[in-house]
């Protein structure tokens, strides 16, 4: 109707020569304005889903959070990026240029998630008396914010155990939504410890207020599992183990009988704690894009070389999750032999139960030692042998810390844990030239993106990138 009116006016106007200011009042059709977007409880929940959408984007868990950090941390003689894109090539070589656009996208999208979460957190008053809904929405938003901050600080800050986290710079700490563009946006870097403090506060609040079940969105055990991972990064094994225990003890999750069931899933399964949900029509999965061999619709860009296979014991089923192709050996964690399955349209597991067992085992072996029941009444052997049994390995009579860590590396390879593990465990890696790169090398911290340095004079560049 409105269009007809405009058309009609367009034809007759001018005969009257009168001003028609309302002819200039047009509204967008594909977007809504700020005031509508957060005006009702339903609209705020829709905005919350927007936060999950960003978390699943290819610059976050849909790709960079997992793929980039893994090819960055892995020794180049084990995992070799042989593709043509220069950005991952630089990252695999551990020689990152400050204008690397993947690295800049990691930063920008993480803060995009944070801004979306902050928008929701700022609009909670619309829930009025509906306290239950309000606290759940708040908790989910804080989970999103904490998850983005955790991934940021791991990539752009020094490790928690590297020097003084109270003074080492982390990333800008921003807790309010952006509503106007002015000079207050030039936020300096908070310390590594301040970022971890926020992550813990947010995740604890999320754990306390999330329901036990929430579809494929975050629930209280998802928050616990993430807390467990964060505490492990900080070297707080008691808390890491306690939160892993909470997830295991919930009884809501169980290890798959076959480890390969974890991969190329289209919905959550028994072992899945939290996964990014891709659909046939809306998906981001850069792991499938880069890791998968060409027969499974991938670019076949990452060769898994012989030294990597030496990590696995004979008979380990995890050593069979590879395929030999004309472009080298590829991991099958993001690929399928079935040509009717397009792995790019499948989910991305972020947290799964095996990791909780591995964390509980590590906490127990460190805190109470081998053979002794620790947190949850479980011995390290209980947890580690459960992991080993399903990949066809014999149980170990006595599990040492070294056993736990080797099991952890082999179980979680290509699942986004390697960078954080190298740093917290102070293990070196190697670059393309077989040069040893220590865990605390400047080269093992992302540079602050050049673009951000240019537009925000409050930022300080990481050492080694000036």
């Amino acid at each position: 109707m409105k269009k007809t009116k405009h058309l009609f006016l367009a034809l007759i106007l001018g005969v009257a020569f009168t001003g028609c200011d309302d002819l200039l009042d047009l509204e967008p059709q594909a977007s809504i304005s700020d005031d509508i977007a957060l005006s009702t409880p339903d609209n705020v929940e829709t905005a919350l889903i927007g936060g999950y959408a960003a978390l699943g984007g290819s610059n976050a868990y849909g790709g960079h959070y997992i793929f980039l950090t893994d090819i960055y941390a892995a020794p180049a003689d084990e995992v070799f990026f042989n593709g043509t894109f220069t950005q991952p090539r630089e990252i695999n070589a551990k020689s990152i240029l400050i204008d690397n656009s993947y690295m800049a996208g990691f930063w920008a999208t993480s803060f995009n998630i944070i801004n979306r979460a902050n928008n929701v957190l700022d609009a909670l008053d619309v829930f009025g008396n509906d306290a239950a809904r309000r606290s759940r929405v708040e908790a989910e938003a804080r989970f999103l914010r904490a998850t983005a901050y955790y991934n940021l600080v791991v990539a752009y800050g020094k490790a928690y155990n590297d020097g003084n986290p109270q003074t080492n710079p982390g990333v800008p700490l921003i807790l309010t939504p952006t509503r106007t563009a002015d000079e207050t946006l030039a936020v300096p870097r908070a310390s590594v410890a301040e970022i971890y403090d926020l992550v813990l506060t947010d995740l604890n609040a999320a754990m306390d207020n999330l329901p036990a079940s929430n579809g494929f969105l975050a629930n209280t055990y998802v928050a616990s599992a993430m807390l467990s991972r964060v505490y492990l990064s900080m070297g707080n094994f008691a808390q890491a183990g306690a939160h892993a225990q909470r997830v295991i003890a919930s009884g809501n999750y169980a290890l798959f009988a076959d480890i390969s069931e974890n991969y190329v899933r289209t919905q959550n399964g028994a072992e899945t704690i939290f996964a990014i949900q891709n659909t046939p029509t809306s998906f981001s999965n850069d792991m499938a894009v880069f890791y998968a061999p060409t027969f499974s619709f991938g670019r076949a860009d990452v060769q898994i070389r012989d030294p990597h296979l030496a990590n696995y014991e004979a008979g380990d089923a995890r050593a069979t999750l590879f395929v030999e192709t004309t472009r080298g050996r590829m991991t099958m964690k993001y690929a399928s032999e079935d040509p009717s399955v397009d792995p790019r349209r499948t989910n991305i597991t972020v947290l799964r139960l095996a990791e909780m067992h591995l964390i509980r085992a590590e906490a127990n072996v460190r805190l109470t030692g081998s053979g002794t029941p620790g947190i949850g009444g479980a011995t390290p052997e209980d947890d580690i042998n459960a992991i080993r049994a399903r990949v066809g390995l014999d149980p170990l009579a006595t599990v040492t810390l070294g056993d736990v860590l080797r099991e952890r590396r082999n179980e979680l390879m290509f699942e986004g844990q390697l960078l954080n593990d190298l740093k917290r465990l102070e293990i070196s890696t190697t670059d393309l030239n077989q040069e040893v790169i220590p865990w605390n090398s400047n080269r093992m911290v992302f540079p602050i993106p050049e673009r951000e340095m240019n537009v925000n004079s409050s930022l300080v560049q990481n050492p080694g990138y000036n």
Partner: protein
Amino acid sequence: MNSKLYILLLALFCFAATEAYGQGYTVSGTVTDASTGEALPGTTVAIPALNRGGITDLDGQYSIDLPAGEHQVVVTFIGYQRFSRTITITNSNVTLDIELRLDVVGLDQVVVVGYGEISRREVTGAIASVRGADIQFAPVNSVENAIQGRTAGVFIQQNSGKLGQGIQMRIRGASSVTASNQPLYVIDGVPIVMDNFSISAAATNPLAQFNFNDVESIQVLKDASAAAIYGSRAANGVVLITTRQGRPGRTQFNYSYQQGFSEPTNKVDMMNASEFVNYMYQAAVNGDRFAGSSWRVPEIEWVMDTYSLGTDWRRCLDTQFGGAGLDCPVDTDWQSEAFQDASMFSHDLSASGGNESTRFFVSGHYGDQDGILINDRFQRISARMNLDHKASERVNLGMNLSTGRSFHQRLSTDNAFSTPIQLIALMPISPIYYPEQGSLPNYVPTDVLNDDTFYYNGLLHRDFTKYEVTTMRTTGNFHLGYSIMPDLEWRSEFSADIVTGKDDQWYSPRVARGFATAANGGFASVAWQQTASYTTTHFLSYNAALTQNSNLNTTAGVSYQYNDYNYSFTSGSGFPNDSFQRLTSAANVLAGSTTGSEYSFLSYFARGNYSLLDRYLVSVSGRVDGSSRFGRDNRYGFFPAASVGWILTDEGFAESITDYLTYLKIRTSYGITGNAAISNFGSLGLWGGTSYGGLSGTNPSQIPNPNLTWETTKQFNIGFDYGFFNNRISGEFDYYIKETEDLLLSVQIPSSSGFSTTLRNVGNMENKGWELVVNTINLDGRLSWTSNFNISSNKNTVTNLDGQVITAGLAGLNRAMEGYSIGVFYAPEFFGVDPENGNALFSIYDDEDTCKNFVETTTSYNAATRCVIGNPNPKFVGGLGNTVRYRGFELNVLFQFVYGNDAYIGGHGRWSRGNGIFEDNSMRDQLNSWTPQNTNTNVPEARYIVSNGNQHSSRYISDGSYLRLKNVTLGYELPVNRVRQLGFNKVRLYVTGVNLLTWTNYEGWDPEMNTDFLAGNISQGTDFYTAPQSRTLTFGIDIGF
């Protein structure tokens, strides 16, 4: 106010006198071309004082009834100088034969301006004109191509040799950083929809449906005085196109056919298989030595084994590396596979004619052109009807209606592995087809294309994809004029410009490596888009002599434009086989969406031109524009302009010099224009839609700015028009300063805010420059030779960006930076090669802001100082046209030049001149890389998988200047008497060459380029596997009957 104006005009009318006149005698004669002596049919012969006249017939004869007395006879014909003579009729008929001289200067031509027209003599602004006849049947893709090099102050550059692609046109430089820098196009009074309907990153040319063979004239309004009547959309200049109109007399038919072929203007020199194998092997040896590693040699052997598909590449490996040192079994010239034999043809048929009350012009066009790249094709079919009818002494009406359809087989963007030019990156040891297994290690091809090349084999795209864009445009303008009084006319115009486009794509699963989405049973998508723009304009014009010596010419009116855009897109995958390409056969519908947008402009405008004694000229104009695009509080803007002119040579004191200085007009102008070309809802805070796991979501997409308004450009212009020696040498000179303020700037903000940019009115930009046009009549007579030379210089400076730097282009190399021209390249400076060890060196400067005070060289790319290493804006552009006529022969030769611009070869420059770090084939000049024996070189040592100068730096800057033989046409018009016997009026045979020769030092394919997927205001001059322009030769015939 309006009624007051009416009364005022009515009062003025009272001074105008009407005059009765009697009949009695005739003036008659023949009008001929002064140089050829040929009769000129269709010439207008007028007695202005009596408002009567006639048209010459086929023999160039005319006859007009006149009473006794003194009469001024004025004869005008397009392309010829105006003829004026006063005759006296006493008591008998008068014979007046008239010879018209070719008009090189165009002094007496009518110039179309916004909402009216005036004689060039009275113009006080800066307007460049192109005659339709000069570009008719040019074998190029669109009207902008056709006027390249013909207008001073206008820089036109086609993005690449792909057909139907975007074209950059800058009138007096870029005036905006974020908003559009393209001019406003107005065809027959209709502001043209310039939406780019491309759904890929590469823009298409919205004017490609327009048949420029219908053009009567093109006026480019350059200064504020000329353009301000178009207000908030005039800051980039205005291009007014007028199409042809019939003349009273017998109906003239014209048929034209041409046929020709095209080839690339240039190819680059790539290594052959033997050179490649040995260069890469040496690079691996060097890389291992440099890095102290031992895996690179086995790695390159594995790579060669893999990509030669079992053919014996070691046969051409040098004996020093353990090979046979013979010829390679496979030596593929991938570059030649990117090109095809391109042919083209076109048919044009038109008819025009009419009588005293009705005139018409109708035309039809069909053209079909192959591009020089495989699979590139462009077809156009169009029709036009222009009609004018005088219903009564007071009422006239008319219509211009054109409709056209283009069908375009498009290519992938320059950034896609599937774009043909990227084939050059493939290894020459990789065969085009899979080998017969039995014949290995020799190569006997099968007929199956090789899909195991290092990069995707783009030839698969040629055979197993479809990318068809069909665009239909209908532009119609109905106008009604009512003569309230003889000097006061009301005119109403209603117009619609409706563009509908269909983008139809299909990809077989065979191309999954180049188009990943196709992997699952193929992929198809279709996008439908439509923009409908409706404009209504009403204005009053008053033209009258105020006194005997002064004239006032005024126009005032109102205009409203409403633009409605709609978009729908559907895609699907999973087709039974390659024969099913429509979505109805898709197993999965992947996406379906629709969206739309609108904008409107409401405008009031007025202009007054006053002339005193025919030599003191004053013009004042203004427009008030309102737009839906801006914040509520800043919706209306006022855009005034004023100009004055003085024709010195009409002064009494100049009489003594007019023998050599025939004509001199000094003019100056100042005014304000605007730019509103931003997104439709740029001032609002917006949230867009998204989804996660099947749940719908929203996300903030734009920060609000309620204060957003247009950017304004204040332009000062001073110039003069001159003519020496009875206008044998004539032309014009202009100097201008354009200051743009309140730039509509997409300001980069810290992305820790969750946004990367916001739109603000901040910053200033300046363009200063001059333009010189020299037209000469070198030879006059049976053998005539005329030349037109134009040169212009523009200096663009970004004067204020509120302290920020805006990056764009390939890897952010192009920048808008304060104190520099827009789009400068910014990267480390490549110092050269260390003769000791072959390391690439970059420069470190003490002063990082200006890159002065050289300190030392470094091999560390991160440590090198970032500097301005080039400027993609040319210092000078121009053209030189020559026309030589002798009897029926006519030779036109147009040179075009661009000087002083830098280009960045970011594609094959970096990847095929990258010290063997990549597995791409390299350019042959890399064979000159550093070796212990060859130390005096600037090509760093080849090192496989080691960076050694392959990073973005000044190493990949190349001089983009060129001089080009743009157009050569040799035509022969058969003698009229012979043609008559055959029943024709005119038979002309011609041959035309486009881009026949190019002189340049550019190291890529062709310096006229700007890679399509990045091209923008800041991203300029970047070559990323950008296809060369085409060199075209056509033969044509043009028949009138």
